[in-house]
């Protein structure tokens, strides 16, 4: 038997170690040169994670930068059903805290899944209570929730954003792109428990821009409060109010009833969420007489003192008998408008002619959208004279056979207030970044000249007369001249005939008459009683009085502030 010598054994050991070393080197080289990418990828996936970074949705502010829509942090509750031991007890506890159905929660907790949402965007109080319970298998993910701190105030204009912070209605929808911002990505290091540790912004998220509105929270509040009071008093089915700065077309307030709370919009009906001021059209009735009067004066067909015989309240046009609510004999042009005589206005319209009247209806912006920065604006109906019936010449001038929106009426009365210009109504003043630096600013836009300045001045005097001695006496403001026109229109029944019990009451006007600061359209759907002069005119009075007092005090304070700043060394 061969027994190796000591030196041979040493040599053999050395050789084996060397062989092992070579093997290791080969393996190392293989890993390094051929497997490195694969292994690096596994390591990267284990140690780090790409996370989508949600941008913060921009706020919506009123013109004094008071917040109307903001983002509030909110926890979303999820469960890992496999890890929950006492499913029934947990479901019962959560049902109490979250005010959710017990069977719904139990069913979700019983699912064979490793992740399931239980409730998204819960309140901080609910989150705190659930955290205290320290239930294994429940977890929270931090999200942000769109919230409206002023509740119902301005809800139709603001609209709502859904669970995923995407605009669904109103300004939230119209300016969704600007408000949303852009998503970013971050690379996070994570531990064995998948906890995110340290992150680097791979692609930073770009937060959404904020909107600064022309809406004034205080004026909006005044308008809504007065609308509510009148709605309750006159048992109306619905109501709308639009308040404009007639010189610029800025919308200072817009409200509708019924309304809803955008913080809980799922609890409201689609009808309550509808912005009636721009989405609903109706026959305007006598407020439309301002168009006929404008056409007559601008075309020099009549003068203020021209007399018209009002047939003592009954006048046949084709096969239709036209009535006045109060019989009149001879009335001047001014009195025809002030007393809102249907017969007088029909006679004026006959002098003006259908074609000219149709042209002025178009010039005032009826039958077309005004291009306000909200979705859902309707055009209304304005038929050309070629399709008019024999009675249309007695219907259209008094606001029948045409349909309009509250916004169109507010814009039309602004034409007379500002000296004859149709301004584009707009809600958003500017889009600003997080430091309130303007990104985009909207400026007043003149759509067209409708009537001359002198005609507008003449009409102002007539409309002042409506409030001073005509049908709009209840709109009269102490120590202030206001101009306006009342309207009471019969609604059309389902069978196509005019109703004798359902009316639309309205008032359009502006104040102060000599230097208009606000123009308004107020509409009530089926009020009791139903006269525009009784229902809508007092609302105008209250809103105008309070709004002007606020606007003037605001102007005075800012004026004093400016002068003091100037004087400060």
């Amino acid at each position: 038997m061969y027994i190796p010598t000591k030196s041979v054994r040493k040599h053999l050991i050395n050789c084996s170690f060397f062989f092992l070393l070579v093997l290791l080197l080969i393996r190392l080289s293989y890993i390094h040169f051929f497997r490195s990418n694969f292994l690096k990828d596994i390591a990267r996936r284990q140690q780090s994670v790409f996370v989508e970074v949600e941008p913060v949705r921009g706020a919506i502010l009123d013109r004094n930068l008071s917040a109307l829509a903001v983002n509030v942090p909110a926890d979303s509750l999820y469960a890992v059903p496999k890890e929950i031991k006492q499913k029934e007890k947990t479901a019962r506890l959560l049902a109490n805290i979250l005010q959710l159905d017990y069977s719904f929660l139990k069913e979700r907790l019983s699912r064979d899944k490793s992740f399931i949402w239980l409730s998204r965007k819960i309140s901080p109080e609910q989150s705190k209570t659930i955290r205290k319970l320290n239930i294994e298998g429940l977890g929270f993910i931090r999200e942000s929730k769109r919230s409206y701190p002023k509740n119902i105030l301005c809800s139709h204009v603001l609209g709502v954003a859904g669970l995923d912070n995407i605009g669904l209605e109103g300004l939230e929808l119209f300016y969704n792109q600007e408000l949303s911002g852009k998503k970013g990505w971050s690379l996070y290091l994570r531990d064995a428990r998948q906890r995110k540790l340290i992150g680097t912004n791979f692609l930073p998220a770009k937060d959404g821009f904020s909107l600064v509105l022309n809406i004034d929270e205080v004026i909006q509040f005044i308008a809504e409060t007065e609308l509510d009071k009148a709605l309750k008093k006159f048992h109306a089915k619905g109501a709308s109010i639009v308040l404009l700065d007639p010189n610029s077309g800025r919308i200072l307030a817009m409200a509708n009833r019924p309304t809803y709370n955008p913080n809980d919009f799922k609890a409201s009906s689609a009808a309550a969420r509808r912005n009636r001021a721009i989405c609903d059209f109706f026959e305007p009735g006598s407020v439309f007489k301002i168009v006929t009067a404008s056409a007559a004066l601008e075309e020099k067909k009549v003068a203020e003192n021209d007399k018209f015989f009002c047939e003592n309240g009954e006048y046949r046009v084709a096969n239709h008998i036209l009535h006045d609510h109060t019989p009149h004999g001879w009335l001047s042009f001014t009195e025809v408008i002030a007393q809102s005589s249907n017969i007088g206005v029909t006679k004026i319209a006959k002098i003006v002619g259908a074609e000219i009247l149709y042209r002025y209806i178009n010039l005032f912006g009826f039958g077309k959208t005004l291009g306000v920065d909200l979705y859902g604006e309707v055009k209304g109906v304005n038929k050309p004279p070629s399709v008019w019936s024999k009675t249309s010449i007695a219907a259209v001038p008094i606001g029948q056979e045409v349909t309009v929106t509250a916004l169109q009426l507010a814009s039309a009365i602004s034409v007379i207030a500002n000296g004859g210009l149709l301004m584009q109504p707009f809600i958003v003043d500017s889009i600003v970044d997080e430091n309130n630096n303007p990104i985009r600013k909207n400026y007043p836009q003149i759509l067209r000249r409708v009537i001359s300045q002198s005609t507008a001045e003449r009409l102002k005097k007539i409309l002042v007369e409506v409030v001073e001695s005509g049908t709009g006496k209840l709109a009269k403001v102490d120590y202030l001249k206001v101009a306006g026109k009342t309207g009471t229109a019969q609604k059309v029944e389902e069978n196509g005939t005019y109703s004798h019990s359902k009316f639309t009451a309205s008032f359009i006007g502006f104040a102060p008459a000599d230097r208009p600061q606000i123009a308004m359209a107020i509409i009530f759907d089926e009020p009791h009683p139903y006269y525009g002069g009784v229902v809508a005119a007092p609302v105008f009075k209250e809103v105008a009085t309070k709004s002007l007092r606020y606007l003037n005090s605001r102007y005075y304070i800012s004026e004093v502030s400016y002068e003091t700043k100037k004087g400060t060394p």
Partner: protein
Amino acid sequence: MKLTKAFSIIATVNIFALLIVYQRTEITKFSYKNKKSEDSLAQLMDRRDYLKFRIEYCKSLDRINDQLFAEVSNFQLPGEAQIVMLNKPQASQKKADLAKVSNKGTGLLSKTFFWLEPEAQAEPGE
């Protein structure tokens, strides 16, 4: 000699590898500390945002109006006889008026019931 050189290279590589591992553990330790402070910061920011929302909510004119008329049943706007009407101040008077306005601050009630302000600012002799 060659073996010594090989060992020293291996030792250097090992030390270098250990340093890398040490660096990684330090980064992880720092990450845990950082995560803790980031969580606290996020919590504080959340609380700040929520408080800001609550302030906006409490400032809501609608809410103040409801509260005022629900809780203070005897609240009444002042009658004509209780109001002192002022003439429009002259330009020289405006600075002094501003001082009063700023002294009054931007109180919630004064903002809400702005129509009471001219009367509220009235002083005897004006």
